[in-house]
């Protein structure tokens, strides 16, 4: 139906927005969707006779998972990656939040440090990887450090920007009731910044995953990235895909967790202002 015909129609149709689905519908649809995808993969590969070196059939990839389990390389590597990742993230969150609050709240510091911060934020810090390996050697510390430097700038920048968006009238109100700097920080700026902190952590979580993977790709004898690289080198494609799948699950868990936290922390704000 054309645009003009619709607009000149005598009985105008009720406005219909985007189709909305309930949560249950979405879950069912997603399951069907994924099952269909697996089928398409399995039979598409067979139908088009794609070489297994390009894309192995779905069943071969799935079969690889118990095999890796029996070889004892599945969970050991998963946990290894998890440990490195969580350690790096913990340190970066502990450091970034106060730093971001400070940079956002204290003008002088902002002026002096934020140019570097933006520079670091834009340039992938992974370029420092060779230097890190040079300084601390190829070990777990280097890997944790890689996660750390990947995540920190993202978190700091978001928290810093968050502090700057604090409503001025709130600050003025608090000041006129006699709040000191410390109280201001604790009672006004920090609560107002909490949603931004949550967003920053979410951004950091996904950036940190990059650091984790690259660290393992380059300089590891363990971990998910290492297994993928190793399997790729010997052209064991099912294992590459299976481990990639594991990594996707790993990432979804981390990012999903962060997103859940973000939603919880920003719920009070969306009610008020949005």
């Amino acid at each position, binding site marked *: 139906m054309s645009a003009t015909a619709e*607009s000149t129609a005598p009985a105008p149709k009720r406005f219909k927005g985007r189709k909305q689905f309930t949560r249950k519908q979405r879950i069912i649809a997603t399951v069907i969707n994924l099952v269909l995808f697996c089928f398409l993969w399995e039979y598409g590969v067979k139908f088009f006779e794609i070489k297994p070196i390009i894309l192995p059939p779905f069943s071969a990839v799935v079969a690889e998972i118990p095999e890796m389990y029996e070889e004892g390389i599945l969970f050991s590597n998963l946990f290894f990656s998890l440990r490195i990742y969580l350690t790096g993230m913990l340190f970066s969150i502990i450091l970034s939040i106060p730093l971001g609050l400070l940079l956002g709240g204290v003008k002088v510091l902002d002026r002096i440090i934020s140019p570097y911060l933006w520079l670091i934020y834009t340039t992938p810090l992974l370029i420092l990887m060779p230097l890190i390996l040079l300084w601390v050697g190829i070990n777990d510390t280097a890997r944790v450090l890689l996660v750390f430097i990947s995540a920190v700038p993202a978190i700091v920048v978001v928290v810093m920007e968050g502090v700057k968006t604090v409503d001025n009238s709130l600050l003025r109100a608090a000041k006129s009731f006699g709040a000191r700097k410390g109280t201001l920080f604790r009672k006004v700026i920090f609560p107002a910044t909490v949603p931004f902190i949550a967003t920053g952590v979410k951004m950091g979580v996904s950036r940190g995953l990059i650091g984790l993977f690259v660290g393992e790709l380059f300089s590891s004898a363990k971990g998910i990235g290492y297994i993928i690289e190793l399997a790729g080198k010997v052209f064991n494609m099912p294992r590459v895909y299976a481990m990639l799948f594991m990594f996707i699950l790993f990432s979804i868990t981390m990012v999903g967790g962060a997103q859940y936290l973000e939603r919880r922390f920003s719920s009070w704000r969306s009610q008020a202002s949005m």
Partner: protein
Amino acid sequence: MTALLSFIAFLILWQSIVWATGIRETLLPSPGSVVTSFGEIWGEGILWPAIVDSLQPLFLGLVVALVVGIPLGLLIGSSGWLDLIAAPYLWGFFATPRIATAPVFILWLGLGFQTKTVLVFISALLPVMLSCKEGVQTVDESLIRAARSFGAGRFDVFRRVVVPYTLPFIANGIRNGIARGFVGLLIIEMTVGRGGIGQQVIRSMGNFDTARMFAFTAVLMVTALFLITLSRKLEAYASRWREEVYL
């Protein structure tokens, strides 16, 4: 101005740390020797080819990502059904760093220009698509209803309401896309090492020529800064109809 002053202070601090601690050049070169190295790589004529080698796949990959990503994002955003179908895949890809797929692409396409371009493409595609999708989905329904009641058709609504409203989101997506694409490019250059600034960084490190590595890193930072400034200008331009522009 403050930035310049603080940069000079930074250089002085760096130089004095090197002097005070007498640290070896391989671990931390002085700013002076970095500048010397920069002159060297300029003189040897390896600086410019490295930059070109990096920028070519970057631009090609980005352009393709924009051409594919923007319409696709708008489409997914405006249709509930498409959103429902695409959601799990978008999610999976969003959460996973795209570099994780690098080993697969290396096996498919080899180590050269193609792999770099494809990696830039997929790194940039997702942020662009997600931003566009989000933009369309946050369009104020009352605006659409108002336009409809003034007789705008589906296409008019799209062109006059949805697209302008979404522009800032698109620009934001482009900015993220550039940043992500750049990361993807660097990592592939560093791991695979076929041309480009990333390879030069790794090679300098292999020769324990840390000053040269710093020089290349500086080139890289300037390139990144240039790209980001460009895209922020674009973002400000795209959202100029909004009352305030936060940069």
